[in-house]
């Protein structure tokens, strides 16, 4: 029997499958999250320190699974052209500050600095999907911390001509010249990730590129090579032409 399927039909089937599977995964993940948090809080009785420690590990692992499911759903909606954006005027420097506040403890726990450099005068507000752009900044900071052993991470925000640029610089393992063309592709992870026990499946930058480009922006990375640190950068236009649908 000969069954021919077009590439488009295949892509749609894949996206639909990922979407359906991910929705079904959510229920058990929610149950684990909710009940483990209640157990940790002592809602069902006093908890011994060792039990507390183990349950925290379960909770954290589950949060990673939740993140993965979100990533899969993002990918499937991106690839089927269904990703939605909610645009509103935002101060990008405030979004960056929120991300810094979220990650400062983790950076310090690893003996790394996390600095924020912003201009003294306020930058113009820009019309963006603040949640999605915040995810891109978080991904930059998360990666920078994961791939840096000593030194730290610096986030800089500035106006360059008629764009706002956010740069995440780190003193980490850098990006090899051979890896550079692929870092924004799906499932791409650096060769040295095993060495660092870095978690993640390589979707953050892939989604980030889609989000920034949907905002008429640019995203790229620079590095002088192995162990020479890297800079991950995106720019968003202050007055976009507005390619985004569902605005």
């Amino acid at each position, binding site marked *: 029997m000969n069954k021919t399927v077009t590439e488009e039909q295949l892509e749609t089937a894949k996206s639909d499958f990922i979407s359906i599977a991910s*929705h079904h995964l*959510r*229920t058990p*993940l*929610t*149950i684990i*999250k*909710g*009940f483990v*948090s*209640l157990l940790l*809080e002592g*809602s069902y009785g006093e908890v011994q320190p060792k039990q507390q420690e183990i349950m925290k590990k379960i909770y954290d692992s589950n949060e990673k699974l*939740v993140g993965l*499911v*979100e990533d899969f*759903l993002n990918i499937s909606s991106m690839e089927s052209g269904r990703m*939605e954006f*909610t645009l509103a005027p935002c101060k990008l420097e405030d979004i960056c500050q929120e991300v810094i506040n979220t990650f400062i403890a983790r950076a310090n726990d690893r003996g790394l600095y996390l600095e924020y450099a912003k201009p003294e005068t306020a930058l113009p507000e820009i019309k963006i999907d603040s949640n999605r752009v915040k995810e891109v900044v978080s991904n930059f900071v998360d990666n920078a911390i994961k791939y840096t052993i000593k030194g730290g991470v610096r986030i800089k925000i500035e106006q360059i001509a008629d764009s706002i640029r956010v740069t995440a610089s780190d003193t980490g393992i850098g990006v090899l010249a051979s890896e550079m063309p692929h870092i924004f592709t799906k499932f791409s992870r650096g060769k040295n990730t095993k060495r660092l026990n870095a978690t993640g499946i390589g979707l953050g930058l892939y989604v980030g590129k889609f989000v920034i480009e949907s905002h008429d922006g640019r995203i790229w990375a620079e590095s002088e090579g192995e162990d020479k640190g890297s800079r991950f950068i995106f720019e968003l236009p202050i007055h976009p032409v507005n390619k985004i649908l*569902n605005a």
Partner: protein
Amino acid sequence: MENSKKILMIEDGEIFIEMFGDRLKQEGYEMEFATNGAWGLKEATEKDFDLFIMDMLMPAMNGEEMIIKLKMDEKNKNKPIIVLSASVDRDTQKRVEAMGISAFYVKTHVTPSELAEEVKKLIG
């Protein structure tokens, strides 16, 4: 701990009724439950509640329809509504936020205690 406030939770997943409901009961709220929108609306009309927590996707009248009907009811139109959804469907979220709900949560992103904090902020 006694708290005279009454909450109606409309949710078709019994396990979520147990998980979120138990936590709210711990705060002293009087909890009642309905497992579909039509039943929930009936309860809301016949009894007095201080706050509604509802799922979006339910049999016999989904959450969105129920919100529309609550907002048309003189007794209930100003009562706070928290949506506790299984997923983020931004179109639905935008629509229900425009109707005037108090908060929109995705179940995978909120713990029972965080929900209890929000309820406390809304009705004390």
